[in-house]
C-alpha cells in the first residue's frame, strides 16, 4: 500500500517538474505582418454569362419539360383516360397489364413467323420431325417397261444391267403386292425387314445380296452366272405368286 502511494507521489512530482520547466521557456509576442500588395477585383464575364443563359442545356424551366408533347399526351390518354374510364382504377390497371402482355405476345408471334421458328416446340421439348419433301425419283420403277428393257440388256450382253432390272422389277412386284412400301430413300435392307414372311424375307435377302455384289460390288457377270441369278429371281416370283 505504501509502495503504491509512493509511486503515485513520484508521478505527481515528475509532472509538476515538467510543467515548471516548460513555464521557464521565454515566450516572444506575435507580430502582425502588413500586406501592401494591390488588390485587383475580378468579375464575371458578361459575354460568357449571356452565352450560358441562352444555352438550351442550362434552361431548366424550358417548355419541353413543363408541357407534354402530343405523343406523351396520347399515351397519357391511352393509359389513364381510356383504361381508367372504362374499368376504374383497379380494373383499369388489370386491363393495362393485360394489354402489355397481349402486345408482347403479338411481337413474339411476329418474330417466330418471320424467322420460321416453331414456338410450341420450345416449350414441349420436342424436336421437329423430318419434312418428307422428297425429290422426284430419277427413275420411277412404275414407269419402266421391264420386259422390253431386260430383253435389250440381255441382247447386248449387259448382264449387270439385266440383274439390276430384275431387282427393280422384284421391288415393284413387292410394292404392288403391298408387302413393302417403295420410297426413294429406303435402302435394300429396309425392304428386307419390311417383309413379314420369314421364308420370303430369306429369299429376298439372297436376291438382294446378288444384286449388291453385281451393282455395288462391280463384279462382272457372264452368261452362266446371269442364268443362275435369273433363276433365283424366277423362283422368287413363283414364291410370291
Amino acid at each position, binding site marked *: 500500500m505504501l509502495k503504491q502511494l509512493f509511486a503515485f507521489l513520484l508521478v505527481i512530482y515528475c509532472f509538476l517538474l515538467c510543467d515548471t520547466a516548460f513555464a521557464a521557456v521565454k515566450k516572444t509576442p506575435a507580430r502582425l505582418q502588413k500586406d501592401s500588395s494591390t488588390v485587383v477585383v475580378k468579375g464575371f464575364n458578361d459575354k460568357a454569362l449571356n452565352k450560358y443563359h441562352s444555352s438550351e442545356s442550362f434552361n431548366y424551366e424550358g417548355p419541353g419539360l413543363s408541357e407534354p408533347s402530343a405523343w406523351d399526351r396520347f399515351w397519357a390518354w391511352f393509359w389513364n383516360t381510356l383504361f381508367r374510364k372504362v374499368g376504374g382504377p383497379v380494373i383499369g390497371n388489370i386491363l393495362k397489364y393485360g394489354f402489355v402482355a397481349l402486345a408482347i405476345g403479338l411481337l413474339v408471334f411476329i418474330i417466330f413467323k418471320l*424467322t*420460321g*421458328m*416453331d414456338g410450341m*416446340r*420450345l416449350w414441349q*421439348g*420436342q*424436336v*421437329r420431325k*423430318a*419434312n*418428307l*419433301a*422428297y*425429290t422426284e*425419283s*430419277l427413275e420411277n420403277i412404275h414407269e419402266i417397261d421391264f420386259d422390253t428393257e431386260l430383253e435389250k440388256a440381255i441382247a447386248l450382253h449387259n448382264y449387270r444391267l439385266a440383274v*439390276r432390272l430384275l*431387282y*427393280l422389277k422384284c421391288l415393284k412386284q413387292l410394292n404392288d403386292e403391298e408387302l413393302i412400301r417403295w420410297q*426413294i*430413300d*429406303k*435402302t*435394300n*435392307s429396309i425392304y428386307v425387314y419390311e417383309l413379314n414372311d420369314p421364308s420370303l424375307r430369306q429369299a429376298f435377302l439372297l436376291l438382294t*445380296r*446378288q444384286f*449388291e*455384289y453385281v*451393282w*455395288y*460390288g*462391280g*463384279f462382272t*457377270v457372264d452368261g452362266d*452366272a446371269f442364268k*443362275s*441369278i435369273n433363276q433365283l429371281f424366277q423362283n422368287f416370283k413363283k414364291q410370291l405368286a
Partner: protein
Amino acid sequence: MENEFFEQRTDMSKLSKAVEQIKATLATIIVGQHDSIDLLVAGILADGHILIEGVPGVAKTLTAKLISKAIDAQYSRIQFTPDLMPSDILGTSVFNPKSTEFEFKRGPIFGNIILIDEINRAPAKTQSALFEVMEERQITIDGHSYKMQEPFTVLATQNPVEQEGTYRLPEAQLDRFLFKIEIKYPTLEEEIAIITRQHQQKTTDQLSHIQPVLTAADIIELRQQVKALHVEAKLLEFTAKIVFESRNHKSLYLGGSPRASLAMINAAKALAAISGRDFVTPEDIIYVAAPVLRHRIMLTPDKEMEGVSPDDVIAQIIQKIEVPR
C-alpha cells in the same frame, strides 16, 4: 459375306479375324455399346481420329484405353486441363549446357495411339497445337518439322459443351476428326450387367488381363487393304450429294467440308470391311453419315433453340436423296 456366284476377289480373312479379336477384347470389359465399338474399329481402320462424347461415367476413357491396349503400339495419354500449353503437348527446345545447344524434347504427342482425355477442358490456344499434327501427321517447331510414326491415331474424349468447365472446340479442329461417337447411357439390362461384372471382379485393375491382339504393322496393313476396297461411282455421287445438301440446308449455317466427303467414303469402306465385304453399299454410307457429319455441321441459332439436333438434320438430308440402285 459368302456368295456362290462370285469368287472372293479380296482376302478379308485377316481383317475379319482382327476385327473379331478387337471386338471380343472390348466385350470383356465394355457392356453393350456395339455401335460405338463398330465405329471405333472402323475409325481406326479408316486411319481417322475419333472424338468420343458422352456425359461423365459412361466409360468413354475406358473404351479408348481398351482400344489402345488391344493394339501393341506406342500409347500416350494427355490429360487436357485449362492451363495446358501447346508446348506441353508438342514438346519444347531445352538448352543443353554440356553441348551448349538447344535440344528438342519430344512431347506426349509423339506416339501411335494418343489418348486425349477431356479434350474440351483446354482453351482454343492449346487446341490449335493439334491442327497440324492431326491433318499432316507432323509438327513444326523452331522451323523444323518432325514426322509422326505410322499409325498415328488420336482418340479424344469429351463431355458435352453444356457441362461445367468445357470449351467449344474450334471448327477447324472438329473437321479433323473422322467420327464423333456419342456414347449414351446403358439400358437397364446393360446397367445390371455392368454392376454384376464389377461386383464379381477380383482385381482393381480391370485392364490388367488385356493382351494386345494387333501390332502397329498389322494396323498399317489392314488400312491399306481397306483403302483398296471398291466404291461404285454412283455411291461417290451419293456421298457428295449428302455433303453438298448439308451446305444448302436452311437449318444449318455451316455444312460439311470436302474433307467430310472424303471421310465418309473412307469410313464407309472401313465399315464394309468390318461387314466382310470388299465393296461399299449405300447402307454403309448412310450408317457413317451421322458420326462423320454431326460435329462438322453447325445449326442455326433458332434451330438450336428449338432443340433440333444435328442428327435430325442429317436424317432429313438423307431422306431427300435417292438411294442409288
